[in-house]
């Protein structure tokens, strides 16, 4: 028997769609060594998840076809097993954690029941034994107070805790291989760090092998021994984690490493994968070290565009039979900030810190409980509907989820032209169409795609469309609410660069909201760290990294994946 737990040999998978056959995996060959962690990196559509689904026998057929290849698990070909044989493997020998902890737990059962179910199914434990084991598992995955939490329902837990429960379910039968498919993408950076540490610890304790799938190469550096990089169905790079970070062979890998916003300095623009290679995959010469740092002018050079004065937003909690107000959730609790014309204010904090509520209150999509919003010298807090509709021309917002923020039944063109129709910009339809075509070009999309529907675009393209729509009314002020958080890192870099270019061109003012300090720091001039509805630290983006004052800021900085391989970071240290 070899020292590999899984050997994938020349795997070809394709999908039949209306548009023709798509080659998802083109001849992948790789091993997962026993007791090691392999990181599988690639952007969406690279085929990274498909090869792991094939391992679990979870590829829907049709439309999927496994054309050829072998997946040997301890010497046996998984692709030749029948469905009932595969059922014994799934959850028992190989188990899997998914991206979305919100939807992968069944909301009508307690978490204890759900962990117990796996155990009763595969290990034939009785109810009592299963409950005991479930309790033990919850403790192992670091859920505080497990004997009480075992009776909780999924909605009573936070996203991070749910992901811990998912992990407990996955390791319940002590699998030999754990597949983690983007397990932290939906989580805040701080929670992400905790989950990564947990997975690394469990992997050692149980001596499991782990296949860790992600779009973020920096993440893998923290946890993997070996790295495989996939691009458009091909494996373009494979090797020891430490070697890849220091000396990547393929330009795509180098692009992935470079495109994450760095912490130590603030470059003028982020390097993108397209700087390292062209469409066909041909290498371009690009020297990352030659990118100059951005010169940050002092904020005092610019006028104040918006003032927030002691803004509060309290949501009432009602209770009792008469629905009386018992208490308030203080989502935003007295925030005063200034936004300077043509500059960017970054808002950073974990989910629930009030940053999103603040953003929406400023636009008066939510009415503030107290406080004043002064825009360009005018107090807009008490503007009525018609005045506010006029204001909407000047203030725009770009949301987090580009999949949800475009109407699926409207063409992209109609979406971009809609604000012009509402605000009577451009006299005729053809004039508006010309303006929309220009906007499409400005965000690097083809103007003739205006007649297409949102589902025909990728996530990054949709976010560009949202940006084009926001620009349609020629605003002065844009709030970007987690606008790049749902995107792959490589796409994130493109969108961030675009936002910077647009700011220069149109003298835009941004409030940039994110949970990822690295991203906010790259794009902002000034940075406000929020916690519990209050601003805990306000500083320019350079000094916040170099000299953070608050513990909370330090914690956020700490949580950012550094992309330093674990051998280098000192594994011994973590073992203690």
């Amino acid at each position, binding site marked *: 028997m070899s020292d590999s737990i899984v050997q994938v040999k020349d795997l070809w998978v394709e999908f039949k769609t209306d548009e023709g056959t798509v080659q998802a995996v083109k001849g992948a060959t790789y091993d997962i060594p026993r007791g090691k962690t392999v990181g599988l990196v690639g952007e969406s559509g690279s085929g990274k998840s498909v090869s792991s689904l094939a391992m679990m026998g979870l590829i829907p057929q049709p439309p999927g076809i496994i054309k050829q290849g072998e997946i040997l698990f301890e010497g046996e070909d998984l692709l030749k097993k029948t469905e009932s044989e595969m059922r014994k493997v799934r959850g028992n020998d190989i188990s899997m954690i998914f991206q979305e902890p919100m939807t992968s737990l069944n909301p009508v059962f307690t978490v204890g029941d759900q962990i117990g179910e796996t155990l009763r199914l595969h290990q034939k434990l009785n109810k009592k034994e299963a409950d005991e084991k479930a309790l033990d598992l919850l403790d192992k995955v670091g859920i505080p107070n497990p004997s009480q939490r075992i009776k909780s329902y999924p909605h009573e837990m936070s996203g991070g805790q749910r992901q811990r429960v998912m992990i407990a379910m996955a390791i319940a039968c002590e699998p030999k291989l754990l597949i983690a498919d983007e397990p932290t993408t939906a989580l805040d950076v701080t929670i992400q760090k905790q989950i990564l540490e947990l997975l690394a610890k469990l992997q050692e304790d149980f001596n499991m092998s782990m296949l860790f799938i992600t779009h973020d190469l920096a993440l893998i550096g923290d946890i993997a021994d070996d790295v495989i990089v996939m691009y458009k169905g091909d494996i373009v790079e494979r090797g020891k984690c430490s070697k890849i970070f220091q000396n990547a062979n393929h330009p795509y890998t180098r692009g992935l490493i470079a495109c994450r916003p760095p912490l130590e300095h603030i470059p003028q623009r982020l390097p993108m994968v397209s700087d390292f290679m062209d469409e066909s995959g041909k290498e371009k010469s690009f020297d990352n070290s030659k990118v100059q740092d951005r010169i940050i002018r002092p904020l005092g050079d610019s006028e104040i565009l918006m003032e927030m004065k002691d803004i509060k937003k309290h949501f009432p909690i009602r209770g009792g039979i008469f629905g009386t107000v018992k208490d308030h959730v203080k989502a935003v609790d007295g925030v005063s900030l200034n936004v300077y014309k043509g500059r960017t204010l970054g808002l950073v904090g974990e989910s629930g810190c009030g940053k999103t509520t603040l953003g929406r209150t400023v636009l008066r999509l939510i009415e503030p409980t107290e406080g004043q919003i002064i825009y360009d010298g005018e107090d807009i807090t008490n503007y009525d509907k018609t005045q506010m509709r006029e204001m909407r021309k000047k203030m725009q917002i770009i949301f987090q989820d580009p999949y*949800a923020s475009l109407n699926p039944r409207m063409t992209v063109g109609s979406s971009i032209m809609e604000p012009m129709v509402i605000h009577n910009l451009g006299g005729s339809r053809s004039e508006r169409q010309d303006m929309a075509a220009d906007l499409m070009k400005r965000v690097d999309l083809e103007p003739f795609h205006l007649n297409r529907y949102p589902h025909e675009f990728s996530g990054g393209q949709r976010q560009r469309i949202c940006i084009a729509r926001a620009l349609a009314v020629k605003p002065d002020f844009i709030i970007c609410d987690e606008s790049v958080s749902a995107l792959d890192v490589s796409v994130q870099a493109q969108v961030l660069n675009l936002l910077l270019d647009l700011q220069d061109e149109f003298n835009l003012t941004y409030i940039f909201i994110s949970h990822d300090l690295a991203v906010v720091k790259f794009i902002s001039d000034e940075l406000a760290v929020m916690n519990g509805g209050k601003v805990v630290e306000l500083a320019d983006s350079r000094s916040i990294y170099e000299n953070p004052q608050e513990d909370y800021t330090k914690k956020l900085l700490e949580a950012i994946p550094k992309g330093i391989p674990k051998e280098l970071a000192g594994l011994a240290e973590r073992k203690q």
Partner: protein
Amino acid sequence: MTTQAATSASQIPKKKSANSLWRDAYRRILANRIALASMVVIIVYVLMALLAQFGLIATDYNLTNTDLKWLSPSSEYLFGTDIFGRSVLHRAIHGSVIAVTVGFFAALIALFIGVTMGALAGYFGGWVDDSITWLYTTIDSIPYILLMASFQFALGQGLSNLFFALGLTSWVTLCRLVRAEFLKQKQKEYVESARSLGASHFRRIFLHILPNVMHLGLIQFGLIFVSAIKIEVILSFLGLGVEAGVPSWGIMINEAKQELNRGYWWNLGAATVFMFGLVLAVNLFNDALRDALDPKLKNK
């Protein structure tokens, strides 16, 4: 700048893209043989009703000739004759006029009321929602036939009153579905982004959310169509439907109840076969429509 914009606009193909979600659904319907077959059957019924209405076929449906009463089915009279010697086949063909119009207009009225009420209730919430919910819960708690009968009694007999009575009582399920879907859709970011662009309530309801909810209306339209046809038959059988003398399948079945014990089954037979054909076709088409419109079933 302007010349550049002009060239870019001329690059935009004028034709609508072939990939809207509606077009997708249309393509899937065309690829479904059962759907196509039932569509053909529905078209045949509609044509039959139109031709009969304009006096182009089965013109002798009301020609009485007592010498020919209760003839058995033959090549001349495919479904025999009734007590007055009228061709049962031709009466059944004329019955399709009532069935198709009643089904169509009742469903149209119910669609209008159900979608509007559901949209307003779901979108605005608060007291609007409370009053609409109260209204449909009240209507829904009255036994259906009783409610129908009382409407019909209050409005008086007649075809147009039948539409209204059926329409006014059939919108509840649709309203519930549309309300629930509006509650879900109004929280989506595309609606919020429309708001941040300055779009009015009207625009958000009718231009943004409604197209994303309309598939429910289409499917319910077919279901109300079928149930209206069936209820018309029951009402006519009870003597509460259209006036006596107008050929309707319900009245034919009503007449057949005296004839059956003498062995004259063809009035019942013809009405049943005609009704069965239409109801089955609409139901099958509706199933296909639901599959085609459901994005979750897309690649099956």
